């Protein structure tokens, strides 16, 4: 009896708070939405202006340089296949979403991770917050996001951003903390300033871990594609969501294949960048 009163009161508060925020913070959310959508549109424009074969060849060349010739050919063919399935525009709009969200996540996650790497108490606090973010079902924060930002790519970006941030923060912080002790001692004994210690010792040793964080952020972002489709991202997510509603299995499988192709390409490319970093290291 008492307990249900508490729960009801809490619900009322939450609803009130949300409507207060959306009433008073409208200009803010309008602004956030505008910034996010402009960024997303810009990236999308870049990816959609060139014809599909330019992008495919470009990706193939990068893969050839980064990994090997076979990987280059495979990636070129796989991208061309997305186009032959008639899903090129959707593929590019999904790519734009994932890239924009991941870049934003890295811009926030890496600096925060660096600070957490140095400040132990902040790291512990963040750990709890990130645990919460990572275990919370996405639908929970999608609802308020839709309420505040509307049914739009901006909401999809926020949702994707939220899942992409934690790995970037965690692995950057880990990389900073993992500097081998002997090198810290070398830095001290050589008379390094704190800033030199950071740029010349800690950061170089953290790079492989940060690269792994970038890779993981991307992978998490891809995991959100379908959910992003539900809140208005467009792209492959929307295609799949539409196919689910109409039980169009063929279309959903095609879109899924396109997502897998994109995911694998970006995974391999970022992983190989990380590996190269380690190899020149050792």
């Amino acid at each position, binding site marked *: 009896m008492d307990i249900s009163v508490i729960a009801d009161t809490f619900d009322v508060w939450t609803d009130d708070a949300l409507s207060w925020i959306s009433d008073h913070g409208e200009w803010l959310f309008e602004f956030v939405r505008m910034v996010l959508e402009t960024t997303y549109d810009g990236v999308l424009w870049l990816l959609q202006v060139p014809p599909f074969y330019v992008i495919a060849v470009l990706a193939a060349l990068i893969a050839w340089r980064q990994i090997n010739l076979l990987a280059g050919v495979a990636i070129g063919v796989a991208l061309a296949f997305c186009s032959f399935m008639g899903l090129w525009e959707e593929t590019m709009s999904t790519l734009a979403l994932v890239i924009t969200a991941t870049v934003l996540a890295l811009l926030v996650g890496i600096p925060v991770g660096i600070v957490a790497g140095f400040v132990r108490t902040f790291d512990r606090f963040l750990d709890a917050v990130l645990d919460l973010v990572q275990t919370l079902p996405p639908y929970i924060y999608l609802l308020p996001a839709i309420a505040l930002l509307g049914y739009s790519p901006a909401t999809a970006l926020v949702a994707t951003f939220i899942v992409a941030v934690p790995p970037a923060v965690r692995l950057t912080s880990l990389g900073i903390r993992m500097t*081998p002790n*002997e*090198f810290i*001692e*070398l830095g*001290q*004994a*050589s*008379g*390094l*300033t704190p800033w*030199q210690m950071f740029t*010349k*010792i800690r950061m*170089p040793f953290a790079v492989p871990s940060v690269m792994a964080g970038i890779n993981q952020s991307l992978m998490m972002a891809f995991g959100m594609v379908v959910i992003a489709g539900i809140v208005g991202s467009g792209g492959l997510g929307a295609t799949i969501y539409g196919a689910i509603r109409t039980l169009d299995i063929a279309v959903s499988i095609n879109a899924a294949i396109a997502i897998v192709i994109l995911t694998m390409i970006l995974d391999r490319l970022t992983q190989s960048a990380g590996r190269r970093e380690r190899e*020149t*290291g*050792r």
Partner: protein
Amino acid sequence: MNTVTDPSNEILVDCKSVWKIFGSRAPAAVKAISERGLSKKQVLDEFNCVVGVADASLQVRRGEIFCVMGLSGSGKSTLIRLLNRLIEPSMGGIVVKGRDIAKLNAAQLRDMRARHIGMVFQSVALLPHRTVLENAAFGLEVRGVGKEERHQTARAALDKVGLTDWTSRYPSELSGGMQQRVGLARALAADPEIILMDEPFSALDPLIRRQLQDEFRQLTKSLGKSAVFITHDLEEAIRIGDRIVIMKDGVIVQVGTAEDIVTNPADDYVSDFVAGISRIHLVKAHTVMRPVAEYSAAHPHVDVGSLLRASPEADIGNLIDLTMQSDRDAIAVVDNDAIVGVVTTRGLLRSVAGHPASQATAA
């Protein structure tokens, strides 16, 4: 303290009753030690603090290689880190080049470390993503020396350690011995007066180690550097060190030249250590010799002046060679044309076997 006028006797590092106590209650333990003179065990029982270095006093002179020998846990690594304040002393003072390093602020301390006290580590700690040249230039780089100049200096330092052809390689392409040469070159490139060597050769195989020991000694001497060299190997200390300090459980047990320590071990602990050390090139005639009168009394018919002669600095190896060349059983030790003592065959055998010289009687 710095009234010594002879520059070769100038004291570069002066460690005065330094203590290092580890543990959360270290300040209280320090207070108790200075007030009540607790033993290490009492400190552990009462404050749960470990004494790393206890009441260590030592002086390193300009141009000297000073070895600190001790087993693991003897506090030698702590001691060397106190000298450049990588570890803060709990009590006592350390004066480096006339400056109390405890009173330096952060910038002054960085400057002291960057310019005056170099350090070489057992783990070498070469930055894996930098070439050999860039590693050797590291100390200069952090001091803000321009690229051209620091690379030139680093190249010269690498020449000195015999790595001229390896400058553009990465550390992982080098053997352990070569890596340690880079570590030494890195310290030398910064041109400090004092180099702290923290067990630099311990991880190397015996042959390479020996080679590096000789090179290190020669290089340090020719460049006129002073070094504090940490080792757990007494033979290494003897090969390299002008003076040796022996540590046990954080306490300095004995300080002296290799000959002092081998011929006059301070206690059983040191005797055990020196038992296996060959005395042939360590012990000198002036230690082995007995007074002329003592010899003449035992051998009244022998004319001391007719014996083969050796200088007081001749080691046992030289004396054995001389004895083999003569049909006599003794050698006269001559200093400035005067016979100052006599070394008998029996005395030689005693010193080779490691019996204290004082027990030797003229035979």
